[in-house]
């Protein structure tokens, strides 16, 4: 397996092809048959028995456990990766030297296949640098504070943990998307169950090592400080480290449970929405369709039902806020106008096409204007025999105007019997009382238009 990898690298990487004299010597040495025999089977190429030295130092991008530093260093020195890892892990226990060195190399050494190191990327990004400096200062302050409280045991553990943690933060924030994917995979691997491949075994082993180490340090700190008096802070730090250890061990399982809960909740909300929509469609559209079938013999009724349903559905789809609040009494001109449209359509069987430009609050004068307009609309629906009535309302800075127009039979104003008070009393006189003006224009066979205008300045002030 090692041989295969070495061959693949030497074939692919141009760096590996550039041989220094020392490298050549190295290869000559390894091509010694007796050495090769002892290390590898006869069939493998001799150069594979010991690593060829690769320059420059690069972090490796495959087959690495964490950041690819050990593998990279092993390749640079021509040593087996496993030995380097073992030595490195041991040095980590000498005041965390190994851990700090690892993170330092992780940040400063470029990953294979990438053009810049994490460190150089961080330095170039001013915002990122500020964030990291701020966090570093905070951590430093906490450490100094702990020391001031008088915790001699913190020195050995606190500083390496803090420096390593900060390094890890830099790595996490500025690593390439490819590497981040790998790290996420590392974080998400389950600690206990769900192991399917050998790769995740490796990850779980790593996680378990880190977690158990942290837990052990925590327990150590706790037991040391527990017996002493006035060492609550030390115990606290111990507990925190212990907590971090447990978190490392069980975080993936916990995160997955959390994710499952969220997706379950989302699914439930979606199902609820679907049920609501089905209920609404049933109450409205299906009911109306059955009513339409029952009154199929009456075209006027069918048209009326269809129109009511259309308006209802339209309002539900496009103006949901207005749909749910319409039961309350209207407070603006737009709402009141929609009420007129609905009432006339429902009660008089004519389509009302409403266009409103602008809006204003309902006051006495505007309400009078709308009442007159409503009367005009009802008249048109009752008498004009037009299929639809156009209503246009415009609110300008100093004027509110309303036009009700139909293309129906029309009439002659002179022929309206004096006992029919609709037009004169409900429209013209009402507008005059409100300080406005009404004009009725009609001609036989050409339809009718009622124009209502209301100066707004006095209506508002």
């Amino acid at each position: 397996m090692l041989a295969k990898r070495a061959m693949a690298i030497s074939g692919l990487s141009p760096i590996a092809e550039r041989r220094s004299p020392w490298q050549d010597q190295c290869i000559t040495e390894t091509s010694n048959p007796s050495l090769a025999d002892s290390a590898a089977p006869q069939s493998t190429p001799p150069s594979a028995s010991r690593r060829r030295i690769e320059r420059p130092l690069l972090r490796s991008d495959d087959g690495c456990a964490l950041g690819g530093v050990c593998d990279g260093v092993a390749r640079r020195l021509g040593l087996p990766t496993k030995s380097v890892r073992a030595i490195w892990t041991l040095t980590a226990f000498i005041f965390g030297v190994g851990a700090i060195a690892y993170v330092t190399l992780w940040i400063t050494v470029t990953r294979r296949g990438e053009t810049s190191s994490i460190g150089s990327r961080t330095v170039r990004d001013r915002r990122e640098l500020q964030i990291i400096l701020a966090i570093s200062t905070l951590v430093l302050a906490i450490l100094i504070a702990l020391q001031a409280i008088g915790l001699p045991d913190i020195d050995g553990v606190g500083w390496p943990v803090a420096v390593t943690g900060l390094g890890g933060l830099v790595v996490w924030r500025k690593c390439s998307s490819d590497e981040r994917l790998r790290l996420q995979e590392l974080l998400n691997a389950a600690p206990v169950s769900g192991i399917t491949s050998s790769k995740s075994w490796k990850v779980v082993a790593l996680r378990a090592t880190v977690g158990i180490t942290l837990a052990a340090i925590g327990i150590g700190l706790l037991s040391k400080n527990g017996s002493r008096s006035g060492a609550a802070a030390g115990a606290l730090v111990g507990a925190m480290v212990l907590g971090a250890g447990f978190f490392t061990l069980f975080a993936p399982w916990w995160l997955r449970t959390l994710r499952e809960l969220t997706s379950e909740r989302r699914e439930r909300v979606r199902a609820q929405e679907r049920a609501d929509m089905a209920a609404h469609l049933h109450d409205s559209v299906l009911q109306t369709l059955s009513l339409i079938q029952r009154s199929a013999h009456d075209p006027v009724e069918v048209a009326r039902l269809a129109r009511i349903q259309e308006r209802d559905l339209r309002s539900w789809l496009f103006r949901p806020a207005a749909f749910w609040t319409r039961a309350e009494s209207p407070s603006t001109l737009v709402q009141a106008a929609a009420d007129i449209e609905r009432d006339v359509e429902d009660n008089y069987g004519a389509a009302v096409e409403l266009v409103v430009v602008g809006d204003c609050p309902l006051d006495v004068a505007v309400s009078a204007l709308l009442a007159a307009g409503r009367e005009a609309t009802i008249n048109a629906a009752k008498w004009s025999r037009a299929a639809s009535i156009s209503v246009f309302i415009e609110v300008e800075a100093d004027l509110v105007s309303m036009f009700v127009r139909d293309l129906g039979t029309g009439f002659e104003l002179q022929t309206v019997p004096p006992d029919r008070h609709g037009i004169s009393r409900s429209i013209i006189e009402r507008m005059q009382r409100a300080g406005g003006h009404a004009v009725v224009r009609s001609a036989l066979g050409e339809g009718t238009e009622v124009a209502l205008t209301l100066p707004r300045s006095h209506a508002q002030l």
Partner: protein
Amino acid sequence: MSDQSVPRVFLVDDHALLRSGIRAELGDNVEVVGEADEVEAAIEMIIERAPDVVLLDVHMPGGGGKAVLEGVVKHSPSIRFLALSVSDAAEDVIAVIRAGACGYVTKNISGTELIEAVRRVASGDAVFSRHLAGFVLDAFRQESTETTRMTSFDPELDQLTPREREVLRLIARGYAYKEIAVELKISVKTVESHVSAVLRKLQLSNRYQLTNWASERRLL
């Protein structure tokens, strides 16, 4: 009948029922050269058949009428579009108009009105429904002249003339072009040119309300 009087029309709508309904209403007054029910096919066939007018449904899966417009206009800018919609929702209307449609009518328009609208679009004029006229009046509302001057880069485009405003008001009141001409004592041709000018402003204006309104809904 000569070619000039019979516009060649292409229908784009994802509902077969509505397509056949529109076809029946148009009858012999136009020549329907094709139909499509989805965006990709529509773009391809429209470019191939080069109709005078495309009747375009605003709501369609796969990007809607706007996607068809954009796909065709890149290739054949001379093809004119008349948007048809069931909804009067302003965001739908403004999206297709700004993408280049010459007009907008609602689907409950009568057969004769639709034929007239198609003819008008075929001859290069704009067609405004009452709702579209209302929307334009709303978007080009005259607030205090101070703020208009402050926010407007191009007063030519960002304001309506009083005459255009009058024409739009009459459209919103339900007047046909002929009736507007009588009412304002001008020719029908002049009414048409006013409406076309408004359409141009609607398409080109960067008026604050218009762009703000459109960008809020991610239309631009």
